Structures are given as structure tokens and as C-alpha cells.
């Protein structure tokens, strides 16, 4: 007497011989499953690749989390007990001011393992002037080494080099066009704080985001602080995190830790996230409906097979097969359809993705993770078993007396 495994051997052997006997039928349904799996894997990989690409591009030019000073609010004394307070309040204008104790805050954040980069930045408005031309710009004072970990500016340099400090500045390509300047030219920066400076344009970058390319002027921290009248201060701490989709949670955590206002990229790009969510939803719909049609295909083939094999089911029952064994024989056939089809389908989708990556528009690269293929195979096999449930139960319920006389 052997155990459950030994028993399953028999069901497996019978199921496989049934499948081999109905070779053409088995092959056709396996190809049907394969097409479904190929569509599911390809669409999933395509959309995942696209989304990763969009997010990478978005995050390539912004911090994952920005820490800002909390808004200034009016301090109102609480009313004395038993009195009622009527309050008419003008909201305060938010002036440019430094984050308190930013050195300590920054040092603390450097210790957090959740964060991959911390970069204090001072930024504020100014005018850039060359001759008669005047453009409103954003001055961004950076520590280049730290800032590079947030936005790899070096990768975006169009001309010149990334060099700030000692009166050097790096400006956006559209701003350079608007002012008609090139690397090596001079530019006057004016902050309206009785501070102005003439800087030397050391480099021109192009981030591919209009707003940034037309307005950003990178300086070193000291010069920006002087121009913005914030000696020794900074206005923003830019952060990056390892798990970009946890940014919202980490922002809340860091916000509590530092008592600063923390904005994650997820919140500042709510529109984009909505679009991505909608896209994922439509992908999931496609997957579900393809899976349903695959399941019905398997179920119908097995239903026909049960009718065709009625007599053989009767013989098996008469020779000692239990209802459970008959049930398992047909469930196994469903599982094999699913597994075989998904192996073929995975290979096909691999080929499709390769073709897309090699000969496609080349806008972005689609990776095909092994986990996706494994997942597809597992799902297809489960779908096969599930689809086989109804015909299998019908086979198991057949009355052996009737089945054996079935012609």
C-alpha cells in the first residue's frame, strides 16, 4: 500500500493517456490557453514597463519627498473660561525663511535608513537680466555632491559643465535661449532684496521639463543664501527613498519626526498617479476577461471529453475507481491544459517582448521578470483546475450502470 502520492500516480497516468489519445484536441486547447497567457503576460509587461518608465522620468527631475518650513500662522490666545471668542483673522503672508536648525535636522535624516539621499537646498525667486531682456527665475542653491543624488544633473548637461560656486551658475536651456546666452556669458541676477550679482554661466542643462528648463538657475548654497538674504539658511530639504511607492508613508513619518511640512511625489503628482491607476485597472480588466475566456475554453473541451469518455468512465468505475478518482483524473487534465498552455504562452510572450524591445519604437525598454512568468503559469494552472471543476464533477457523478452501456 502506498500513500496519497502513489494514488495520484494512477490518476496522473490515466489523465495523461486521455490527453495523449485526444492529441489534436489537447493541442488546440493548449494553443488557445497559450494565446491567452501570451496576451496577459505581454500586456502586463508592456504596461509595467511603461509605468516604470513614466515614473522614472517624472522622478528623474524631482525629489521623492520635499521638507519645507511649516506655514506661519497667527498665534491666537485661547479664550478665558466662560467667555466666547469672536475672531476675524487675516492669513499671514508666507515670507521666505529658513528651516530652523536645519543642520541638525539634516544630520538626523542622514542616519535614517529609509532615505537614500538628503540634500538641503535654498530656493527663492529672482530676475535674470541681460541687457534689456528680463526673465523671472528660481534661484536654487545646492550642494552639488548631495544634490546629484536627488537629480543626476550631470546626465542632463547640454553644454559646459556642472560647476557652481565662485560666481558660477548653471541655467536651463530654455532660459538660455530666451536670454540669448551661451556658456561663458555673464548674467545679472536680481532678487529685489537690494541684492544682485553678476554670475558666469558655467553650464546649460536640459531636464526635458519646460517649467524647469525655462526657470531654474543653480548656484552654490552660499551665493544663493546671500542673494536671497538668508545667510546660513536653507528653505527646502530634498529627500529620496528606496521604495518610491512608500514615499507617502515615509513622508508622514519624516514629517512627524522633524515637525516640518513633508510633501511626497505621490501627492504632488496626484494627476499622474490617477492616470497610472486607471491604466492598471484597465490592464487588470483585460487580464480578468482573457482569463475567463480561457477558463470557458478549457471547461467546454473537458465537457465534450466527459461525454466522449462516458463509457470509459463507466469501465473505470466498474474496475474499482472511486468518484474522487474520476474527479481527480479530469481536474488533472484541466491543470495540464493550464500549465502546458502557459508554458507555450510564456515562451511566446518572451518572443513578443524581445521583438518589441529590438524592433519596436524604442521609446522604452520592457523588462520581463521571471516572477511574472511564474505567476502566469501558476494562475493558468489554477484557472485550468477551476475550469475543470464543473465537467469533473459531472464525470464523477455519472452512474456507472448507465455509463457502461453508453455507446
Amino acid at each position, binding site marked *: *500500500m*502506498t500513500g496519497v*502520492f*502513489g*494514488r*495520484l*500516480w*494512477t490518476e496522473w*497516468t*490515466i489523465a495523461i*493517456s*486521455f490527453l*495523449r*489519445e485526444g492529441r489534436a484536441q489537447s493541442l488546440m486547447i493548449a494553443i488557445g490557453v497559450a494565446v491567452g497567457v501570451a496576451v496577459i503576460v505581454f500586456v502586463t509587461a508592456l504596461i509595467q514597463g511603461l509605468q516604470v518608465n513614466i515614473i522614472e522620468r517624472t522622478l528623474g527631475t524631482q525629489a521623492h519627498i520635499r521638507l519645507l518650513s511649516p506655514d506661519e500662522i497667527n498665534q491666537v490666545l485661547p479664550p478665558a473660561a466662560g467667555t466666547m471668542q469672536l475672531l476675524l483673522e487675516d492669513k499671514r503672508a508666507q515670507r521666505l525663511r529658513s528651516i530652523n536648525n536645519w543642520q541638525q535636522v539634516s544630520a538626523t535624516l542622514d542616519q535614517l535608513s529609509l532615505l537614500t539621499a538628503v540634500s538641503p537646498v535654498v530656493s527663492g525667486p529672482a530676475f535674470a537680466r541681460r541687457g534689456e531682456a528680463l526673465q523671472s527665475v528660481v534661484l536654487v542653491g545646492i550642494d552639488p555632491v548631495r544634490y546629484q543624488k536627488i537629480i543626476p544633473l550631470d546626465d542632463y548637461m547640454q553644454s559646459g559643465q556642472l560647476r557652481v560656486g565662485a560666481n558660477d551658475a548653471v541655467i536651463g536651456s530654455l532660459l538660455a535661449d530666451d536670454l540669448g546666452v551661451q556658456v561663458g556669458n555673464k548674467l545679472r541676477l536680481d532678487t529685489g532684496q537690494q541684492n544682485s550679482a553678476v554670475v558666469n554661466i558655467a553650464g546649460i542643462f536640459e531636464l526635458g521639463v519646460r517649467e524647469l528648463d525655462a526657470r531654474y538657475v543653480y548656484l552654490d548654497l552660499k551665493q544663493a543664501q546671500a542673494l536671497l538674504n538668508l545667510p546660513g539658511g536653507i528653505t527646502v530639504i530634498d529627500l529620496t527613498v528606496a521604495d518610491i511607492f512608500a514615499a507617502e508613508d515615509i513622508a508622514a513619518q519624516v514629517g512627524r519626526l522633524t515637525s516640518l511640512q513633508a510633501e511626497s511625489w505621490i501627492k504632488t503628482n496626484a494627476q499622474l498617479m490617477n492616470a497610472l491607476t486607471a491604466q492598471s485597472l484597465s490592464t487588470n480588466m483585460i487580464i480578468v476577461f482573457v482569463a475567463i475566456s480561457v477558463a470557458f475554453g478549457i471547461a467546454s473541451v473537458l465537457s465534450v471529453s466527459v461525454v466522449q469518455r462516458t*463509457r*470509459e468512465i*463507466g*469501465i*473505470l*468505475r*466498474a*474496475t*474499482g*475507481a*472511486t*468518484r*474522487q*478518482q474520476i474527479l481527480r483524473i479530469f481536474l488533472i487534465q484541466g491543470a495540464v491544459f493550464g500549465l502546458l498552455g502557459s508554458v507555450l504562452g510564456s515562451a511566446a510572450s518572451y518572443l513578443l517582448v524581445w521583438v518589441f524591445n529590438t524592433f519596436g519604437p524604442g521609446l522604452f525598454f520592457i523588462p520581463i521578470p521571471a516572477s511574472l512568468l511564474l505567476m502566469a503559469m501558476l494562475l493558468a494552472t489554477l484557472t485550468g483546475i477551476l475550469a475543470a471543476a464543473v465537467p469533473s464533477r459531472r464525470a464523477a457523478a455519472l*452512474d*456507472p*450502470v448507465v455509463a*457502461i452501456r453508453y455507446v
Partner: protein
Amino acid sequence: MSDDAMTVLRLEGLRKSYNVGQPNEIEVLHGIDVVIGRSDFAALVGPSGSGKSTLLNLLGLLDQPSSGELYLLGQATSAMDDAARTALRGSSIGFVFQFHHLIQAFTALDNVLMPLMLSRGKPDKLAVQQARELLAAVGLEKFANRKPNELSGGQQQRVAIARALITEPALLLADEPTGNLDTRTAAEVFELFHKVNRERDCAVLLVTHDPRLSAACDRTINLVDGRIESDTLNQPASQQK
């Protein structure tokens, strides 16, 4: 009365109705009492519609009686569930049908092994050896690896007999086993049944239309309109040959 070791099957007041509770309810068997012993070589005869097939299905535990009791090897079977009846059927009854009913996808050897595969899983060397011996006993040792559609009708029926014997059953039930064989092959198959009965300590019950076959059996049970009309011992015809 209790069953001794020589009794294989005992029926007490066995009745079978179809369409129970409906206007067209019909009783096919009206109380059958029969005892079949270990060494019996019996024929069940009767005109069409007499209830032979119904009785055979009940004897083979393929169907359940409406009332009455069926004792197989001393065990009452009417209260058993499907799994228990399947197990008892698998271990103690062998079936041979008119249309040899082999599984087309398997070889002759695998068909013979099927009852063991279903009850025990993957057959061991001993089981395969046993199956080969049975195929040899029915004269088919050279055809072990043939598929059923590569065998003649008589050969297929002999494979079916070998399959019925692999579990060393106490009772072999055969429904018109020679029904669609030519006379000479039919005689060979019949002789095989007789040999099984003599050599393997196995009761044989043949359902047949053929008066010559029933006359050649040791005992003839005559079923008419759902009742046993006669149950007679024959002259040992097989020994007259």
C-alpha cells in the same frame, strides 16, 4: 442464518424499482432469494426484459436495491456508502462485459493492471508479474504491449477476463461475455471461464441468452418477469465432452 466460508453471495428479498415516487414507478425485481457458493459455475438466463441486467448490476454493487439485503462475503451492503461499495467491488468482484470494454488508451498489460492501479497506485514488480501470468493464462502473453484496437474481439474479451481476475476476486460476473463473438471463439472464452472457476477458487455467474451455454454450466438460474422461476443443477455437461 450466517454465511460460512463457502458462501460468496446471498440475496434476501431483493427488490428493485425504477422511477420511485413517480406515476410511472415500476418494480423490475420482485423479491429475489439466491445463494451463490464459492465453487458455483452458474448461468443466469431469462427472456429480454426479465430483469437480468438489473440483477447483475445489483450483484456487482454497481446499483443499489430498493429493498432487501445483499450479503457479499458475509457483509451486508445496502447501508454502505459509495466509497465502501467501490472498495468492496474492487477487491472481491470481477466484471466481464459483452462489449469487451477495455480502455483504448492503454496497452493490454496496463488494462489488466488497471484495478490494482486504481486501488494501490503505481503497480510494483510483483503486480506486473502477476498481470503477465494472467495474460499467459488466457493465452495472450505475446500481446501484452498491444493496444485494444490491435486485438481481435476474442483477444479483447480474454484481456477483459484477465483484468477481472487480477484482484483475485471471489466472484466473477459476466454479462453476455460471448455475445458478439463467433461460435468457435465463444467456446474458447467459455472454456476459459470454466477453467477460472475450477482453478482459481472463484464463483462465476454468466448472464446469457444462449441455451447451449447455460446448459454447459453447472447451475441454471432462470429469471422470468423479475422472479426466479427455476434454479436447477445441470448434468455435469462440461465433463461429458
